[in-house]
């Protein structure tokens, strides 16, 4: 598709430019190592410049929302409105002692946070943040995202196993039980818009919904609402479970398992679990925006094909981030409102409620697609 080529073009051009510049500087041909290196640089810059601050902002927002929900003020001492509190906490975590207690499986214990960190940050790299602003425009972007949250689980199981702590072990056991429960409804409900759009590429899924608000998949053409709205809800609830957020925060259930899988982690190793949690929340919010809420297209149908608005880039970025942050905030609000489910209730919900619903939705959307094709 020409559209997806266009979307990838800008980041592609950027890395080619860097490759040529560096090759020129050292006086060599711009061969593949230069291209590979420069693509790595671009991806790293995207992660460092955009995603990490977004994660930090998420932590700040969460604390502020928690404060407002609980008749408190929230952080307000470090920096204006407490904006630098998270940074200060990061510095604190960095200066903490890196303690690994005796009896841990050290190699796994050290390795686990990296797996969680890397997989989550890799997952967000396929998001179309704006027209042409996809760090890695894969044809199977959605599949890549689902694979990455699967890999994140391995890191968590590793952490729980290596900690040599029974609470951690129980936490990672719960994580496994939860993953095999939520992944089915999560994947199947994501398939509903995929069947309609006929693509796994997140950019193509976005451009499928180009136009005014009734082109968004959640209420597409009016009649798609019968699959769009339930599929969005199923995806959102399974997404909550994927982020290990309340009411599905069983793997780290504080009142039951002390801190679950990261009980034994301290300092920045704990930070390496903590920051990705917020990035993962943002990623899931982004994916639900792409799948159901029109991605970077505004609700008035002003943006042209490909998402540009009179050649302005920020228009699309603004709508994408606006929509994603709204569902991000909803996730946070839910955490401070709801109690936690029990472990068997999570499985019941996923297997006996969400899974049948999403299977029915897949049938329905296929039927709709057939009827559309027949007309």
């Amino acid at each position, binding site marked *: 598709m020409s559209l997806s080529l266009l979307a990838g073009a800008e980041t592609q051009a950027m890395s080619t430019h860097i490759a040529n510049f560096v090759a020129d500087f050292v006086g060599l041909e711009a061969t593949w190592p230069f291209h590979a290196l420069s693509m790595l640089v671009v991806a790293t810059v995207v992660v460092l410049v955009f995603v990490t601050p977004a994660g930090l902002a998420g932590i700040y927002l969460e604390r502020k929302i928690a404060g407002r929900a609980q*008749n408190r003020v929230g952080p307000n001492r470090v920096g204006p409105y407490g904006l630098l509190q998270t940074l200060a906490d990061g510095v604190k975590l960095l200066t903490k002692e890196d303690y690994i207690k005796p009896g841990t499986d050290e190699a796994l214990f050290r390795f686990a946070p990296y797996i969680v960190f890397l997989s989550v940050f890799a997952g967000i790299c396929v998001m179309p943040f704006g027209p042409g602003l996809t760090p890695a425009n894969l044809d199977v972007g959605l599949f890549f995202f689902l694979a990455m949250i699967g890999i994140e689980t391995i890191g968590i199981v590793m952490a729980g196993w290596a900690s040599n702590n029974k609470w951690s072990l129980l936490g990672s056991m*719960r994580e496994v039980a939860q993953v095999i429960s939520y992944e089915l409804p999560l994947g199947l409900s994501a398939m509903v818009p995929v069947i309609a759009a006929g693509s796994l590429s997140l950019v193509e899924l976005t451009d499928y919904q180009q136009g005014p608000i009734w082109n968004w998949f959640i209420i597409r053409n009016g009649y798609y609402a019968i699959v769009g709205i339930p599929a969005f809800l199923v995806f959102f609830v399974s997404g909550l479970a994927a982020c290990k957020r309340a009411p599905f925060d069983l793997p780290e259930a*504080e009142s*039951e*398992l002390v801190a679950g899988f990261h009980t034994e982690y301290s300092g920045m190793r704990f930070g390496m679990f903590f920051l990705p949690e917020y990035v993962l929340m943002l990623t899931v919010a982004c994916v639900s925006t792409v799948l159901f809420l029109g991605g970077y297209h505004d609700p008035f149908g002003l943006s042209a094909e490909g998402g540009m608005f009179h050649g302005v880039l920020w228009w699309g970025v603004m709508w994408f981030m606006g929509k994603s942050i709204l569902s991000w905030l909803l996730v946070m609000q839910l955490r401070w409102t*709801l*109690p*936690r489910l029990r*472990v068997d*209730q999570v499985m019941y919900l996923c297997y006996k409620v969400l899974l049948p619903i999403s299977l029915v939705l897949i049938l329905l959307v296929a039927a709709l697609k057939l009827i559309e094709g027949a007309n």
Partner: protein
Amino acid sequence: MTTIQGVKFEGEAVAPTLPRDIQTDEMVFNMGPQHPSTHGVLRVVVKTDGEVVLDCHPLIGNLHRCAEKILENLTYTQGMPYVDRMDYLGALNNEMGLALAAEKIAGVEIPKRAQYLRVIMCELNRVISHLFCAGQFGLDMGAFTPFLYMFREREEGISLINQVTGGRLLYHYIRYGGVTRDANQEWLDAAHKYCDVVRSHMDEYNNLLTYNRIFLNRTCGVAMIDKDTCLRYAVTGPILRAAGIQRDLRKDMPYSSYEDFDFEVPVGPFEEGVVGCSWTRHRQRLYEIEQSLDIVQQAIAKIPDGAFAHPKVTRAWKAPAGEAYVATESPRGELGFYIISDGSKMPYRVKTRGPSFSNISLLGECSRGLLIGDLIALIGSTDITLGEVDR
């Protein structure tokens, strides 16, 4: 009988809820004393099969401070602050019990105004204690926000009591022969208003927590403590009433003018849930808050003028030779004080019957077959104070 880590477990309990086709190894957890949900320094040794609790054994004594022995080595007046530290969430109720026992030996009839002040303070104390427990139970179930909502009203209540007693949690307010300080009309009006404020927030708690679908799923019919178990373990207080037995010492054996007030004793089951489940215990406490607020408002309306302490009972007061046992209804159940006096300035023997001590003993029996999350519901809804268990 098996012994694990020095703890004896009775019999081989088999989880009744799950089929045991697959034989897996059992695991022993040490829950506490630093676990977030053991409410203090309780250590529970839990034998589990995965998530299913096969048996558990509460190990107590981490907060043992020889409270009774200390009381025997201090004069009557000096000893009073020490009972505050037993059930530190319902400190005034402890003082009430000790004062009543010593006054019973001496046969002192204390002024009516002092009795009413005691009732007002004890009931306010019960309100803030139950608010704490209900919020804490929500916290155990993973709901953080209701806890802080209840703390908001609890904080108001604490500062209200603070205005008269001079203490926030440990008051040293009730003395032999009366109370230390009188409350003026302004304060009584403020207390009356506080009761309305708490009552107006009850719907908020219920909507946010008590009738939340997830909370209901977590607690209804879970962690059952039935009537029979309650009687066998001498369980008292809200747990007993939630199990369907109408026993409230304020009604059955009135002390300190409780007979003057008109109040209902709520008994489970309520709208949702069944007799003796953890939701019923939670609801029971919320109903008891409303009932206590009623008592406070009635006491404020009826409070007579007069002295707030017996003029003959001075600081150097001592009980004559004799012995007495007085049981009172503390927020956690039947709190009894048994004092033997030999006529000297110090009591010869003091024995406390702490309700938390009896209530905690059912943990082993009632936890069998629960999931770990349900065990937290069991511990949270029994509302134990370790200061009183260990004394």
